[in-house]
Protein backbone atom coordinates (compact mmCIF):
# COMPACT_ATOMS: atom_id res chain seq x y z
CA UNK A 1 0.00 0.00 0.00
CA UNK A 2 1.28 3.44 -0.83
CA UNK A 3 0.74 6.01 1.86
CA UNK A 4 0.80 9.50 0.41
CA UNK A 5 1.86 12.57 2.30
CA UNK A 6 -1.83 13.38 2.68
CA UNK A 7 -2.62 10.35 4.81
CA UNK A 8 0.46 10.51 7.00
CA UNK A 9 -0.66 11.68 10.48
CA UNK A 10 1.79 14.56 10.43
CA UNK A 11 0.05 16.72 13.03
CA UNK A 12 -0.24 13.87 15.50
CA UNK A 13 3.42 13.05 14.89
CA UNK A 14 4.57 16.63 15.45
CA UNK A 15 2.78 16.78 18.80
CA UNK A 16 5.14 14.05 19.98
CA UNK A 17 8.23 16.22 19.49
CA UNK A 18 8.32 18.99 22.10
CA UNK A 19 11.28 20.77 20.54
CA UNK A 20 9.26 21.62 17.43
CA UNK A 21 7.49 24.30 19.49
CA UNK A 22 10.85 26.05 19.86
CA UNK A 23 11.30 29.35 18.06
CA UNK A 24 14.46 30.33 16.21
CA UNK A 25 14.80 33.85 14.84
CA UNK A 26 11.26 34.55 16.02
CA UNK A 27 9.59 31.71 14.09
CA UNK A 28 9.04 28.01 14.85
CA UNK A 29 12.19 26.08 13.99
CA UNK A 30 12.12 24.20 10.68
CA UNK A 31 14.48 21.43 11.69
CA UNK A 32 15.99 20.05 8.48
CA UNK A 33 19.02 18.46 10.13
CA UNK A 34 17.69 15.08 11.23
CA UNK A 35 20.43 13.37 9.25
CA UNK A 36 22.90 14.77 11.78
CA UNK A 37 20.67 14.09 14.78
CA UNK A 38 16.92 13.63 14.86
CA UNK A 39 14.78 15.17 17.56
CA UNK A 40 13.82 12.90 20.43
CA UNK A 41 10.26 11.61 20.59
CA UNK A 42 8.27 12.25 23.78
CA UNK A 43 7.87 8.52 24.43
CA UNK A 44 11.66 8.22 24.60
CA UNK A 45 12.11 11.33 26.77
CA UNK A 46 9.51 9.97 29.19
CA UNK A 47 11.01 6.48 29.27
CA UNK A 48 14.43 7.93 30.19
CA UNK A 49 12.79 10.15 32.81
CA UNK A 50 10.87 7.23 34.32
CA UNK A 51 14.01 5.10 34.57
CA UNK A 52 15.92 7.92 36.25
CA UNK A 53 13.11 8.76 38.69
CA UNK A 54 11.97 5.26 39.61
CA UNK A 55 14.29 2.48 38.52
CA UNK A 56 17.83 3.87 38.33
CA UNK A 57 20.25 1.09 39.16
CA UNK A 58 22.96 -0.97 37.52
CA UNK A 59 22.09 -3.94 35.31
CA UNK A 60 23.12 -7.61 35.61
CA UNK A 61 24.57 -7.04 39.06
CA UNK A 62 22.32 -7.06 42.10
CA UNK A 63 19.39 -9.17 43.11
CA UNK A 64 17.61 -6.17 44.61
CA UNK A 65 14.36 -4.85 43.18
CA UNK A 66 15.68 -1.77 41.38
CA UNK A 67 18.48 -3.70 39.69
CA UNK A 68 15.98 -6.30 38.58
CA UNK A 69 13.73 -3.63 37.09
CA UNK A 70 16.62 -1.87 35.37
CA UNK A 71 17.85 -5.17 33.93
CA UNK A 72 14.39 -6.07 32.67
CA UNK A 73 13.99 -2.67 31.01
CA UNK A 74 17.48 -2.78 29.47
CA UNK A 75 17.05 -6.30 28.12
CA UNK A 76 13.53 -5.39 27.04
CA UNK A 77 15.04 -2.63 24.92
CA UNK A 78 17.30 -5.24 23.33
CA UNK A 79 14.20 -7.29 22.47
CA UNK A 80 12.65 -4.21 20.88
CA UNK A 81 15.74 -3.46 18.78
CA UNK A 82 15.91 -7.13 17.72
CA UNK A 83 12.27 -7.09 16.66
CA UNK A 84 12.58 -3.73 14.91
CA UNK A 85 15.54 -4.78 12.75
CA UNK A 86 14.23 -8.28 12.09
CA UNK A 87 16.93 -10.15 13.99
CA UNK A 88 16.57 -13.94 14.09
CA UNK A 89 17.90 -14.00 17.65
CA UNK A 90 18.03 -11.30 20.34
CA UNK A 91 21.66 -12.21 21.08
CA UNK A 92 22.53 -10.75 17.68
CA UNK A 93 21.98 -7.24 19.08
CA UNK A 94 24.95 -5.64 20.85
CA UNK A 95 24.41 -2.25 22.49
CA UNK A 96 27.14 0.28 21.68
CA UNK A 97 27.49 4.07 21.91
CA UNK A 98 26.69 4.83 18.27
CA UNK A 99 27.13 3.53 14.74
CA UNK A 100 30.78 4.63 14.79
CA UNK A 101 31.49 2.38 17.75
CA UNK A 102 29.60 -0.49 16.11
CA UNK A 103 31.80 -0.23 13.01
CA UNK A 104 34.95 0.08 15.10
CA UNK A 105 33.91 -3.02 17.03
CA UNK A 106 33.68 -5.05 13.81
CA UNK A 107 36.92 -3.65 12.36
CA UNK A 108 38.74 -4.43 15.62
CA UNK A 109 37.25 -7.69 16.83
CA UNK A 110 36.38 -9.34 13.51
CA UNK A 111 38.98 -7.51 11.45
CA UNK A 112 42.04 -8.27 13.59
CA UNK A 113 41.09 -11.96 13.68
CA UNK A 114 40.27 -12.33 10.00
CA UNK A 115 42.19 -9.80 7.90
CA UNK A 116 45.93 -10.16 7.39
CA UNK A 117 48.86 -8.86 5.39
CA UNK A 118 48.09 -8.46 1.69
CA UNK A 119 44.35 -9.01 2.18
CA UNK A 120 41.97 -6.54 0.55
CA UNK A 121 39.24 -4.39 2.08
CA UNK A 122 36.58 -2.91 -0.23
CA UNK A 123 34.98 0.44 0.62
CA UNK A 124 32.83 2.81 -1.44
CA UNK A 125 33.44 6.46 -2.25
CA UNK A 126 30.17 7.44 -0.54
CA UNK A 127 31.12 6.22 2.94
CA UNK A 128 30.93 8.37 6.05
CA UNK A 129 34.27 8.73 7.82
CA UNK A 130 33.01 6.27 10.44
CA UNK A 131 33.01 3.53 7.80
CA UNK A 132 36.39 4.56 6.37
CA UNK A 133 38.73 5.37 9.22
CA UNK A 134 38.29 2.12 11.24
CA UNK A 135 39.15 0.16 8.07
CA UNK A 136 42.15 2.35 7.29
CA UNK A 137 43.33 1.76 10.85
CA UNK A 138 42.83 -2.00 10.40
CA UNK A 139 44.71 -1.91 7.10
CA UNK A 140 47.61 -0.12 8.82
CA UNK A 141 47.68 -2.60 11.69
CA UNK A 142 47.74 -5.73 9.56
CA UNK A 143 49.16 -4.52 6.24
CA UNK A 144 45.96 -4.90 4.18
CA UNK A 145 45.07 -2.99 1.01
CA UNK A 146 41.97 -0.83 0.47
CA UNK A 147 39.97 -0.60 -2.77
CA UNK A 148 37.31 2.03 -3.46
CA UNK A 149 34.10 1.29 -5.34
CA UNK A 150 33.30 4.43 -7.37
CA UNK A 151 30.20 6.61 -7.41
CA UNK A 152 28.81 7.54 -10.83
CA UNK A 153 27.79 10.97 -12.11
CA UNK A 154 24.24 10.62 -10.76
CA UNK A 155 25.43 9.74 -7.29
CA UNK A 156 24.73 6.03 -7.52
CA UNK A 157 27.24 3.33 -6.81
CA UNK A 158 28.83 1.99 -10.02
CA UNK A 159 27.67 -1.61 -9.59
CA UNK A 160 29.74 -2.99 -12.48
CA UNK A 161 32.88 -1.49 -10.99
CA UNK A 162 31.88 -2.83 -7.57
CA UNK A 163 31.54 -6.35 -8.99
CA UNK A 164 34.88 -6.05 -10.71
CA UNK A 165 36.52 -5.01 -7.42
CA UNK A 166 34.84 -7.93 -5.65
CA UNK A 167 36.69 -10.06 -8.19
CA UNK A 168 39.93 -9.12 -6.40
CA UNK A 169 38.71 -11.23 -3.49
CA UNK A 170 38.38 -8.78 -0.60
CA UNK A 171 37.85 -10.17 2.88
CA UNK A 172 35.24 -7.54 3.67
CA UNK A 173 32.98 -5.06 1.92
CA UNK A 174 32.05 -2.08 4.12
CA UNK A 175 29.17 -0.16 2.59
CA UNK A 176 26.52 2.31 3.62
CA UNK A 177 22.86 1.44 3.22
CA UNK A 178 21.84 5.04 2.44
CA UNK A 179 24.29 7.86 1.68
CA UNK A 180 24.30 10.63 4.29
CA UNK A 181 25.00 13.19 1.55
CA UNK A 182 23.34 11.93 -1.63
CA UNK A 183 20.28 10.06 -0.36
CA UNK A 184 21.31 7.12 -2.55
CA UNK A 185 19.93 3.77 -1.37
CA UNK A 186 22.31 0.94 -2.18
CA UNK A 187 20.73 -2.40 -3.19
CA UNK A 188 22.22 -4.30 -0.25
CA UNK A 189 20.51 -7.66 -0.86
CA UNK A 190 21.90 -7.91 -4.38
CA UNK A 191 25.30 -6.58 -3.38
CA UNK A 192 25.54 -8.93 -0.39
CA UNK A 193 24.86 -11.94 -2.65
CA UNK A 194 27.70 -10.87 -4.99
CA UNK A 195 30.02 -10.23 -2.05
CA UNK A 196 29.36 -13.65 -0.51
CA UNK A 197 29.99 -15.33 -3.86
CA UNK A 198 33.33 -13.55 -3.89
CA UNK A 199 34.07 -14.69 -0.34
CA UNK A 200 33.67 -11.31 1.39
CA UNK A 201 31.55 -10.52 4.42
CA UNK A 202 29.39 -7.39 4.26
CA UNK A 203 29.46 -4.72 6.97
CA UNK A 204 26.62 -2.24 6.43
CA UNK A 205 26.45 1.25 7.90
CA UNK A 206 22.78 1.72 8.69
CA UNK A 207 23.05 5.08 10.46
CA UNK A 208 20.99 6.75 7.71
CA UNK A 209 19.16 3.69 6.37
CA UNK A 210 17.60 2.51 9.63
CA UNK A 211 15.65 5.75 10.26
CA UNK A 212 14.14 5.70 6.76
CA UNK A 213 13.56 2.06 5.81
CA UNK A 214 11.87 -1.10 7.09
CA UNK A 215 14.55 -3.63 8.00
CA UNK A 216 14.58 -7.41 7.90
CA UNK A 217 18.21 -8.12 8.71
CA UNK A 218 17.53 -11.81 9.23
CA UNK A 219 17.01 -12.14 5.49
CA UNK A 220 18.74 -9.07 3.97
CA UNK A 221 21.99 -10.95 3.51
CA UNK A 222 24.48 -8.57 5.13
CA UNK A 223 26.63 -9.89 7.98
CA UNK A 224 26.80 -6.82 10.21
CA UNK A 225 24.58 -3.73 10.39
CA UNK A 226 25.30 -0.64 12.49
CA UNK A 227 22.59 1.70 13.77
CA UNK A 228 22.52 4.70 16.06
CA UNK A 229 19.80 5.85 18.42
CA UNK A 230 20.08 9.60 18.04
CA UNK A 231 19.05 9.45 14.39
CA UNK A 232 16.08 7.22 15.36
CA UNK A 233 14.30 9.71 17.66
CA UNK A 234 16.18 8.35 20.70
CA UNK A 235 18.94 9.84 22.91
CA UNK A 236 22.60 10.26 22.00
CA UNK A 237 25.09 7.79 23.46
CA UNK A 238 23.28 4.63 22.39
CA UNK A 239 23.37 2.54 19.24
CA UNK A 240 23.38 -1.08 18.25
CA UNK A 241 25.44 -3.49 16.24
CA UNK A 242 23.48 -6.31 14.67
CA UNK A 243 25.64 -9.25 13.61
CA UNK A 244 25.15 -12.82 12.47
CA UNK A 245 25.21 -14.98 15.57
CA UNK A 246 27.84 -17.40 14.28
CA UNK A 247 30.18 -14.56 13.38
CA UNK A 248 29.69 -12.74 16.69
CA UNK A 249 30.31 -15.95 18.64
CA UNK A 250 33.55 -16.61 16.79
CA UNK A 251 34.86 -13.08 17.49
CA UNK A 252 37.23 -12.18 20.33
CA UNK A 253 36.15 -9.37 22.69
CA UNK A 254 36.44 -5.68 21.79
CA UNK A 255 36.89 -3.85 25.11
CA UNK A 256 37.79 -5.61 28.35
CA UNK A 257 36.22 -5.05 31.75
CA UNK A 258 33.17 -5.85 33.81
CA UNK A 259 30.13 -7.64 32.37
CA UNK A 260 32.04 -9.19 29.46
CA UNK A 261 33.71 -11.95 31.50
CA UNK A 262 32.82 -15.46 32.54
CA UNK A 263 35.60 -15.82 35.10
CA UNK A 264 38.65 -13.78 36.00
CA UNK A 265 41.64 -15.32 37.78
CA UNK A 266 45.22 -14.23 38.23
CA UNK A 267 46.12 -16.66 35.48
CA UNK A 268 43.70 -15.18 32.98
CA UNK A 269 40.11 -14.56 31.94
CA UNK A 270 37.42 -16.44 30.11
CA UNK A 271 34.80 -14.41 28.31
CA UNK A 272 31.03 -14.24 28.43
CA UNK A 273 28.87 -15.36 25.53
CA UNK A 274 27.44 -12.76 23.14
CA UNK A 275 26.15 -10.11 23.39
CA UNK A 276 27.62 -9.53 26.89
CA UNK A 277 31.12 -10.28 25.54
CA UNK A 278 30.97 -6.98 23.63
CA UNK A 279 29.36 -4.87 26.34
CA UNK A 280 32.20 -4.18 28.77
CA UNK A 281 31.40 -1.89 31.69
CA UNK A 282 28.14 -0.32 32.75
CA UNK A 283 26.21 0.38 29.56
CA UNK A 284 24.13 3.45 28.65
CA UNK A 285 21.12 2.00 30.46
CA UNK A 286 18.78 5.00 30.35
CA UNK A 287 19.63 5.67 26.71
CA UNK A 288 19.04 2.04 25.71
CA UNK A 289 15.64 2.18 27.38
CA UNK A 290 14.97 5.44 25.52
CA UNK A 291 15.96 3.82 22.24
CA UNK A 292 13.59 0.93 22.87
CA UNK A 293 10.76 3.38 23.58
CA UNK A 294 11.47 5.34 20.39
CA UNK A 295 11.41 2.19 18.26
CA UNK A 296 8.22 0.98 19.96
CA UNK A 297 6.66 4.35 19.11
CA UNK A 298 7.81 4.18 15.46
CA UNK A 299 6.54 0.64 14.99
CA UNK A 300 3.36 1.06 17.02
CA UNK A 301 2.23 4.49 15.82
CA UNK A 302 3.52 4.66 12.25
CA UNK A 303 5.20 1.54 10.92
CA UNK A 304 8.41 1.83 8.92
CA UNK A 305 6.62 1.47 5.56
CA UNK A 306 4.73 4.70 6.27
CA UNK A 307 7.95 6.34 7.52
CA UNK A 308 9.71 5.39 4.28
CA UNK A 309 6.83 6.70 2.16
CA UNK A 310 6.81 9.99 4.08
CA UNK A 311 10.56 10.33 3.56
CA UNK A 312 10.15 9.71 -0.18
CA UNK A 313 7.29 12.19 -0.45
CA UNK A 314 9.27 14.92 1.31
CA UNK A 315 12.41 14.23 -0.73
CA UNK A 316 10.33 14.40 -3.92
CA UNK A 317 8.71 17.66 -2.87
CA UNK A 318 12.11 19.13 -1.95
CA UNK A 319 13.69 18.20 -5.27
CA UNK A 320 10.75 19.75 -7.11
CA UNK A 321 10.74 22.91 -5.02
CA UNK A 322 14.50 23.48 -5.11
CA UNK A 323 14.56 23.05 -8.90
CA UNK A 324 12.80 26.45 -8.97
CA UNK A 325 15.70 28.21 -7.19
CA UNK A 326 18.10 29.76 -9.73
CA UNK A 327 21.76 28.79 -9.51
CA UNK A 328 21.17 25.76 -7.33
CA UNK A 329 23.16 22.58 -8.02
CA UNK A 330 21.64 19.48 -6.45
CA UNK A 331 23.73 16.39 -5.73
CA UNK A 332 22.57 12.79 -5.75
CA UNK A 333 20.14 10.70 -7.77
CA UNK A 334 17.49 12.55 -9.81
CA UNK A 335 13.92 13.07 -8.69
CA UNK A 336 11.94 9.84 -8.63
CA UNK A 337 9.36 7.98 -6.55
CA UNK A 338 12.00 6.03 -4.63
CA UNK A 339 14.49 8.85 -4.01
CA UNK A 340 15.21 9.28 -0.31
CA UNK A 341 16.66 12.27 1.51
CA UNK A 342 18.84 14.00 2.31
CA UNK A 343 19.02 16.62 -0.43
CA UNK A 344 22.47 18.21 -0.67
CA UNK A 345 23.04 21.29 -2.74
CA UNK A 346 25.35 24.14 -3.62
CA UNK A 347 24.08 27.65 -4.31
CA UNK A 348 26.23 29.28 -6.97
CA UNK A 349 28.04 32.32 -5.58
CA UNK A 350 27.15 31.63 -1.93
CA UNK A 351 29.24 29.29 0.20
CA UNK A 352 27.37 26.55 2.10
CA UNK A 353 28.29 28.16 5.44
CA UNK A 354 26.73 31.42 4.39
CA UNK A 355 23.66 29.61 3.05
CA UNK A 356 23.26 27.94 6.43
CA UNK A 357 23.77 31.24 8.27
CA UNK A 358 21.08 33.01 6.25
CA UNK A 359 18.66 30.07 6.47
CA UNK A 360 19.05 30.20 10.25
CA UNK A 361 17.69 33.74 10.16
CA UNK A 362 14.52 32.18 8.76
CA UNK A 363 14.49 29.53 11.49
CA UNK A 364 15.56 26.88 8.99
CA UNK A 365 18.23 24.50 10.32
CA UNK A 366 20.39 22.75 7.73
CA UNK A 367 23.90 21.36 7.90
CA UNK A 368 26.77 22.91 5.96
CA UNK A 369 30.14 21.30 5.48
CA UNK A 370 31.72 18.08 4.30
CA UNK A 371 29.28 15.87 6.24
CA UNK A 372 32.14 13.60 7.37
CA UNK A 373 32.37 12.37 3.79
CA UNK A 374 35.51 14.03 2.43
CA UNK A 375 36.24 11.21 -0.03
CA UNK A 376 32.83 11.78 -1.59
CA UNK A 377 33.31 15.58 -1.51
CA UNK A 378 36.53 15.11 -3.47
CA UNK A 379 34.64 12.92 -5.98
CA UNK A 380 31.96 15.62 -6.33
CA UNK A 381 34.62 18.30 -6.66
CA UNK A 382 33.34 20.47 -3.80
CA UNK A 383 34.73 21.40 -0.39
CA UNK A 384 31.35 21.74 1.26
CA UNK A 385 27.64 21.42 0.54
CA UNK A 386 24.51 22.45 2.36
CA UNK A 387 22.22 19.56 3.26
CA UNK A 388 18.54 19.40 4.10
CA UNK A 389 17.67 16.13 5.83
CA UNK A 390 14.27 14.99 6.97
CA UNK A 391 12.43 13.21 9.74
CA UNK A 392 8.95 11.88 10.40
CA UNK A 393 7.94 15.40 11.49
CA UNK A 394 9.10 17.22 8.34
CA UNK A 395 6.39 19.12 6.47
CA UNK A 396 6.12 20.56 2.96
CA UNK A 397 5.66 24.01 4.54
CA UNK A 398 9.12 23.69 6.06
CA UNK A 399 10.50 22.91 2.60
CA UNK A 400 8.75 26.04 1.28
CA UNK A 401 10.55 28.03 4.00
CA UNK A 402 13.85 26.46 2.89
CA UNK A 403 13.21 27.60 -0.69
CA UNK A 404 12.31 31.15 0.47
CA UNK A 405 15.45 31.26 2.60
CA UNK A 406 17.56 30.31 -0.39
CA UNK A 407 15.99 33.12 -2.41
CA UNK A 408 16.93 35.45 0.44
CA UNK A 409 20.52 34.18 0.39
CA UNK A 410 20.71 35.12 -3.28
CA UNK A 411 19.33 38.56 -2.46
CA UNK A 412 21.84 39.17 0.37
CA UNK A 413 24.70 38.21 -1.92
CA UNK A 414 23.41 40.46 -4.69
CA UNK A 415 22.71 37.61 -7.11
Amino acid at each position, binding site marked *: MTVTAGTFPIERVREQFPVLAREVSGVPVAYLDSGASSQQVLASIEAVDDYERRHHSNVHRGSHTLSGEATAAYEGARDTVARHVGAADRREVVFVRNATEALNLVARAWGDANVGAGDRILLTEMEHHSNIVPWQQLAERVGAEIDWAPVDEEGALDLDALRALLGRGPKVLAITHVSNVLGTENPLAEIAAWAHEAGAIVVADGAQGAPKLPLDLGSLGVDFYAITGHKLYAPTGIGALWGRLDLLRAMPPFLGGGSMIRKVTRAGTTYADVPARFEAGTPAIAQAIGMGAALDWLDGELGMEAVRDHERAIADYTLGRLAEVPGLRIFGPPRGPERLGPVSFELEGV*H*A*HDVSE*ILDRHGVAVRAGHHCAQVL*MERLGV*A*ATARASFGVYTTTEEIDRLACGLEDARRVFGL
Partner: protein
Amino acid sequence: MEDQLYRDQILEHYKRPHNFGVVEGADLEFEDTNPFCGDEQHVTIRLDEDDRVAEVAFEGKGCAISTAATSLLTDELIGKTREELLRLPKEYVLELLGIDISATRMKCAMLGLKIVKSAAVGQPAEWEDEGQVGDPSEAAAL
Protein backbone atom coordinates in the same frame (compact mmCIF):
# COMPACT_ATOMS: atom_id res chain seq x y z
CA MET B 1 19.17 48.52 5.00
CA GLU B 2 22.63 47.04 4.93
CA ASP B 3 22.95 43.48 6.20
CA GLN B 4 24.57 43.38 9.67
CA LEU B 5 26.82 40.43 8.87
CA TYR B 6 27.12 40.46 5.11
CA ARG B 7 28.04 44.13 4.84
CA ASP B 8 29.00 45.55 1.48
CA GLN B 9 32.67 45.55 2.47
CA ILE B 10 32.54 41.85 3.39
CA LEU B 11 30.74 40.87 0.20
CA GLU B 12 33.14 42.99 -1.86
CA HIS B 13 36.17 41.18 -0.39
CA TYR B 14 34.40 37.83 -0.84
CA LYS B 15 33.60 38.38 -4.49
CA ARG B 16 36.88 40.14 -5.36
CA PRO B 17 39.43 39.12 -2.72
CA HIS B 18 42.63 41.15 -2.52
CA ASN B 19 46.03 39.46 -2.82
CA PHE B 20 44.45 36.36 -4.32
CA GLY B 21 46.93 33.96 -5.89
CA VAL B 22 50.40 32.61 -5.22
CA VAL B 23 53.68 34.47 -4.61
CA GLU B 24 56.36 32.93 -6.81
CA GLY B 25 59.52 31.99 -4.96
CA ALA B 26 57.86 32.43 -1.56
CA ASP B 27 60.01 32.32 1.56
CA LEU B 28 57.11 31.30 3.79
CA GLU B 29 54.05 29.28 2.97
CA PHE B 30 51.42 27.23 4.70
CA GLU B 31 48.17 25.52 3.86
CA ASP B 32 45.48 24.51 6.30
CA THR B 33 41.84 23.60 6.46
CA ASN B 34 38.91 24.54 8.61
CA PRO B 35 38.08 21.06 9.97
CA PHE B 36 34.52 22.19 10.60
CA CYS B 37 33.75 22.48 6.90
CA GLY B 38 36.81 21.37 4.92
CA ASP B 39 37.56 24.84 3.51
CA GLU B 40 41.21 25.29 2.55
CA GLN B 41 43.47 28.29 2.30
CA HIS B 42 47.06 28.48 1.11
CA VAL B 43 49.16 31.52 2.06
CA THR B 44 52.50 32.42 0.43
CA ILE B 45 54.81 35.17 1.66
CA ARG B 46 58.02 36.68 0.25
CA LEU B 47 60.38 38.45 2.68
CA ASP B 48 62.73 41.32 1.89
CA GLU B 49 66.38 41.52 2.95
CA ASP B 50 65.33 42.75 6.43
CA ASP B 51 63.09 39.69 6.85
CA ARG B 52 59.98 41.80 6.55
CA VAL B 53 56.92 40.84 4.48
CA ALA B 54 57.47 42.18 0.95
CA GLU B 55 54.66 40.33 -0.79
CA VAL B 56 51.79 38.12 0.37
CA ALA B 57 49.06 36.17 -1.40
CA PHE B 58 46.44 33.59 -0.57
CA GLU B 59 44.29 31.18 -2.51
CA GLY B 60 41.57 28.69 -1.65
CA LYS B 61 37.85 28.22 -1.51
CA GLY B 62 35.92 29.42 1.46
CA CYS B 63 32.88 31.17 2.82
CA ALA B 64 32.32 34.93 2.79
CA ILE B 65 33.69 35.32 6.30
CA SER B 66 36.92 33.34 5.87
CA THR B 67 37.63 34.81 2.43
CA ALA B 68 36.95 38.42 3.47
CA ALA B 69 38.95 37.99 6.69
CA THR B 70 42.05 36.76 4.87
CA SER B 71 41.63 39.33 2.11
CA LEU B 72 41.49 42.15 4.69
CA LEU B 73 44.31 40.67 6.75
CA THR B 74 46.73 40.24 3.85
CA ASP B 75 46.23 43.92 2.98
CA GLU B 76 47.88 44.81 6.32
CA LEU B 77 50.92 42.55 6.38
CA ILE B 78 53.47 44.37 4.19
CA GLY B 79 56.51 45.46 6.23
CA LYS B 80 55.77 43.23 9.23
CA THR B 81 58.45 40.92 10.64
CA ARG B 82 57.79 37.26 11.38
CA GLU B 83 57.78 38.08 15.08
CA GLU B 84 55.14 40.72 14.46
CA LEU B 85 53.04 38.23 12.52
CA LEU B 86 53.24 35.80 15.41
CA ARG B 87 52.08 38.46 17.87
CA LEU B 88 48.95 39.45 15.91
CA PRO B 89 45.94 38.87 18.18
CA LYS B 90 42.65 37.57 16.89
CA GLU B 91 41.07 40.93 17.77
CA TYR B 92 43.19 42.40 14.97
CA VAL B 93 41.20 40.41 12.40
CA LEU B 94 37.89 41.05 14.19
CA GLU B 95 38.54 44.79 14.01
CA LEU B 96 39.34 44.57 10.31
CA LEU B 97 36.10 42.69 9.73
CA GLY B 98 34.12 45.18 11.84
CA ILE B 99 31.19 42.82 12.35
CA ASP B 100 30.03 40.60 15.18
CA ILE B 101 31.35 37.09 14.67
CA SER B 102 29.41 34.32 16.41
CA ALA B 103 31.16 31.40 18.08
CA THR B 104 30.15 29.12 15.20
CA ARG B 105 31.85 31.38 12.65
CA MET B 106 34.99 32.19 14.67
CA LYS B 107 36.98 29.39 13.01
CA CYS B 108 36.06 30.86 9.62
CA ALA B 109 37.22 34.34 10.64
CA MET B 110 40.50 33.07 12.11
CA LEU B 111 41.53 30.60 9.40
CA GLY B 112 43.70 33.07 7.50
CA LEU B 113 45.42 34.45 10.60
CA LYS B 114 46.14 30.95 11.80
CA ILE B 115 47.73 30.08 8.46
CA VAL B 116 49.78 33.31 8.39
CA LYS B 117 51.13 32.49 11.86
CA SER B 118 51.79 28.91 10.86
CA ALA B 119 53.69 30.14 7.81
CA ALA B 120 55.72 32.48 10.03
CA VAL B 121 56.65 29.76 12.48
CA GLY B 122 57.03 27.01 9.86
CA GLN B 123 54.64 24.62 11.58
CA PRO B 124 51.02 24.64 12.75
CA ALA B 125 50.58 27.61 15.08
CA GLU B 126 49.01 26.89 18.43
CA TRP B 127 45.88 28.72 19.52
CA GLU B 128 44.66 29.02 23.03
CA ASP B 129 41.03 29.19 21.97
CA GLU B 130 40.69 26.20 19.71
CA GLY B 131 41.80 22.61 19.70
CA GLN B 132 42.56 22.22 16.02
CA VAL B 133 46.01 21.29 14.91
CA GLY B 134 47.13 21.01 11.31
CA ASP B 135 49.24 18.29 9.78
CA PRO B 136 52.90 18.99 10.61
CA SER B 137 53.95 17.30 7.35
CA GLU B 138 52.32 20.18 5.51
CA ALA B 139 54.62 22.70 7.12
CA ALA B 140 56.95 24.22 4.57
CA ALA B 141 60.65 24.09 5.38
CA LEU B 142 62.02 27.51 6.17
